[in-house]
């Protein structure tokens, strides 16, 4: 019997602690949002109408589904179904890419309408609408960076699963990547109604 230090529960708890700091990071942005909303309720509603609800809805469905596939991947690896685990990881990564492609088209359309921080068009729209879009680009942008990181992480861990370095006996790395991915989903669950659905 080899002597080896191992603490899976500790590793998971460490990941949770890190995710709490991520929540605090995003909650700072949501506080800014709440303050600006309290100050400019009319302008926020007007600005929200300029966002494309279809892009928002499709991306919500994409992210919820990717959260499902990575959750299923954990069950698959626990049951030692390596092929299924890999398929589910790859589907998750593909959904992450779909999300980013959607974001690309969404932002391209908005930018082509002159809606981006610092544009002349934004200056004409006034401070309330400008506050909305600055926060929108920053929050959604930071969220997009998290998608990129999470997707990459899952890709790396999937490669380790394929090589047999992450196994049904030892899969904390996959669990922690999945936890990170779910956090990305959680942020979007709040971001979507707050930015796209204001009346």
């Amino acid at each position, binding site marked *: 019997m080899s002597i080896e230090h191992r603490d899976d529960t500790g590793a*998971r708890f460490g990941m949770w602690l890190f995710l709490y700091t991520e929540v605090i990071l995003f909650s700072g942005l949501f506080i800014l949002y709440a*303050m600006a909303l309290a100050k400019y309720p009319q302008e926020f509603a007007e600005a929200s109408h300029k966002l494309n609800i279809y892009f928002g809805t499709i991306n919500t469905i994409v992210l919820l589904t990717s959260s499902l596939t990575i959750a299923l991947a954990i069950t698959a690896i626990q049951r030692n179904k390596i092929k299924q685990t890999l398929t589910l990881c790859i589907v998750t990564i593909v959904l992450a890419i779909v999300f980013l492609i959607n974001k690309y088209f969404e932002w391209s359309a908005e930018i082509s309408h002159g809606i981006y921080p610092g544009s002349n068009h934004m200056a004409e729209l006034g401070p309330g609408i400008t506050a909305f879009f600055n926060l929108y680009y920053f929050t959604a942008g930071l969220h997009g960076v998290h998608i990129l990181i999470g997707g990459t992480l899952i890709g790396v861990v999937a490669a380790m699963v394929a090589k047999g370095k992450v196994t049904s006996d030892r899969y904390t790395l996959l669990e922690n990547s999945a936890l990170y991915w779910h956090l990305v989903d959680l942020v979007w669950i*709040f971001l979507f109604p707050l930015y796209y659905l204001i009346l």
Partner: protein
Amino acid sequence: MAEHQHEPVPYKTFILIWVVLLVLTVVTIAVSRIQLDALNIWVALAIASIKSSLVVFIFMHLRQESKLFKIGLVTLLVIVAIFIGLTFTDVLYR
């Protein structure tokens, strides 16, 4: 094996939760199209909170974790509440 491992959550459970999450998404969108004035934002936040609890407890396996993890979550929520609450004692009474 000294390491304690979780029982695998059946595929069916995850798929069921996913369906509920999609239904709640439709509900959020539907409710957001009805004019309820200030109530709209609270309804949206309430539904988002239900959705996130499902993700946290089922998808993230918090239900299966020890008490320590749950205390951690409560601590986080208290910190965020203080963070938001104290900010608003300033913002609302300027």
